[in-house]
């Protein structure tokens, strides 16, 4: 039963990643794309956690923690760029 | 005391985070965690603001429970709105006048608002007196402002800013 649940969850999370990719490609504005990237990294964490449970390996957590930190820093850096982009004239 | 242990709460927190990161309760990792928790606050002393005194721990606890409950409700409400589609939402910006004065209080309030039902704090006026909040489905802006002030701002003020 657990295996079936994990497989369904894989399908749902993969579909979620597909939806964020669609938003990333279609935009239309720059904040939309950054938001899509932000969601993409959270979905990637979900996928890694599922993979860790599926393969019974705790190693995937190191990757999940790294993605959580780097993703947040990336979002903040991109937002700061948007906020100061037209300050440097 | 203040020189050698500048942040009495930060030290055990850092030690706890280290133990969680190492994922082991071995004496070695606890010791290393305590060492890091002791050294990091000393080397980053200039960065930290003065620690805020917590006045009423019970109010803080009740506030955390209220926020936890609201996060669950937020998720269900927002999920329902998303599934129903875009024709049923009434997005709006509301301006919340702030009674909070401290930096810690305002950032706590802003983060709480972003974590709970269909609202994201979007903008703080430069004089820190107005917080602009974007709501996903706002039926009555005045009621939303009133709820935010009563449910979140009042407890934060009681805990961190009461004199």
């Amino acid at each position: 039963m657990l295996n079936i649940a994990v497989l369904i969850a894989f399908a749902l999370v993969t579909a979620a990643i597909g939806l964020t990719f669609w938003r990333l490609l279609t935009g239309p504005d720059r904040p939309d794309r950054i938001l899509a990237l932000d969601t993409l990294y959270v979905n990637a964490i979900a996928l890694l956690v599922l993979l860790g449970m599926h393969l019974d390996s705790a190693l995937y957590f190191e990757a999940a923690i790294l993605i959580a930190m780097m993703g947040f820093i990336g979002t903040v850096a991109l937002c700061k760029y948007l906020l100061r982009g037209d300050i440097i004239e | 005391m203040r020189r050698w242990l500048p942040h009495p709460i930060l030290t055990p927190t850092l030690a706890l985070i280290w133990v969680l990161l190492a994922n082991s309760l071995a004496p070695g990792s606890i010791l290393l965690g305590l060492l890091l928790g002791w050294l990091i606050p000393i080397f980053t002393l200039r960065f930290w603001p003065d620690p805020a005194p917590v006045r009423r721990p019970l109010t803080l606890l009740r506030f955390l429970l209220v926020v936890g409950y609201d996060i669950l409700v937020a998720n269900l409400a927002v999920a329902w709105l998303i599934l129903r589609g875009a024709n049923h939402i009434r997005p709006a910006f509301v301006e919340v006048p702030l009674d909070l004065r401290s930096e810690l209080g305002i950032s706590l309030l802003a983060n709480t608002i972003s974590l709970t039902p269909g609202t994201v704090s979007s903008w703080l006026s430069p004089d820190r007196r107005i917080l602009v909040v974007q709501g996903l489905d706002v039926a009555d802006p005045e009621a939303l402002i009133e709820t935010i002030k009563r449910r979140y701002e009042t407890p934060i003020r009681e805990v961190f800013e009461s004199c």
Partner: protein
Amino acid sequence: MLEITLTVLILIGAIFTFIGSLGLARMPDFYTRLHGPTKATTIGVGSLLIASMIHFSTQEAGLSFHEVLVTLFLFITAPVSAHLLSKAALHLRTRSLSEPPPLVDATDHAGRNSPDSLS
């Protein structure tokens, strides 16, 4: 019993993750899109992490608690990135269904020297 709990948590987590991204894809303007991911994903990933914590703790290797770190980190960072994204969008005057208060536009460009601005 354990298996049922795990199954329910995993399914709840996956469904909320999916609904969050669905909101991102479906909603009409930037500010409404912001609500889906920042909320639904925190509880989605949150319950997946709790499931994983239970899963690894009940195995022979012993207790596993470092999932708490990721959960905590996501709960602290999600509102911050939502606020920054929203602030950037207001700054760029992104098209929106709801009218931003005139106050924002008036002070956003005048108030750059304030401690609050990120310049």
